[in-house]
């Protein structure tokens, strides 16, 4: 375990980021479910009140950012295992663009509210 921290290698670093993001996503899921519950049942002003609380707004933004990061890391591994090497770069680049785009949109929308 110590080697992972003291001798950084690209694959180890990827592994570590995947695990750390997963670990921090566990508690952050709370905001996802609170958000989902309000999307289904709260009226508009209740939704705004909930989102105007900094704790909720930044909790949800943190969830979106971290989940996009975790997703990009995960999809990269899937593509490395299932897509021919000649097409891997393009596939991974596309996936990263997708996740960066989603993260940016999520932050832009939530900050505005």
């Amino acid at each position, binding site marked *: 375990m110590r080697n992972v921290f003291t001798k950084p290698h690209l694959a180890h670093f990827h592994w570590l980021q995947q695990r750390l993001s997963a670990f921090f996503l566990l508690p952050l899921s709370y905001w996802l479910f609170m958000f989902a519950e309000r999307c289904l049942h709260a009226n508009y002003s209740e939704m705004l009140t909930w989102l105007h609380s900094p704790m909720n707004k930044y909790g949800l933004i943190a969830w979106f950012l971290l989940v996009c990061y975790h997703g990009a890391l995960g999809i990269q591994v899937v593509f490395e295992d299932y*897509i021919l090497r000649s097409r891997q770069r393009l596939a991974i680049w596309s996936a990263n663009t997708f996740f960066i785009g989603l993260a940016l949109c999520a932050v832009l929308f939530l900050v505005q509210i």
Partner: protein
Amino acid sequence: MPHNRPISPHLQIYRLPLTGLISISHRLTGVLLSIGLLGLVFVAMQITLGEENFNQIQLALNTLPMKIVIIGFVYALMFHLCHGVRHLIWDAGRTFSREKLTYYARIELVISASLTLFIARELM
């Protein structure tokens, strides 16, 4: 770096044991959840656009087909989460014997289903 990494695993060739099925489902749910993220960002956009848009999206989310999609998303997330926790336990070097692998695979399925039921009841 030599370009000799194999494309793997060949799912159509091997009959996978329960642990293998769960492992590939972990990946599959990861991909599906990523697609589901699009929906969440779309809902966030509708909130930004104003009350009318929010009311419309809320109406759509409360229809039966969308409720089924939402419960599917929750199950995929709970399954992915439970298997992810097991990866964290594996990373600590524990529960690698064959019996334990199958035992915890079953536990994982039960816990993810229970969590989904609990959350679905709270959400719906």
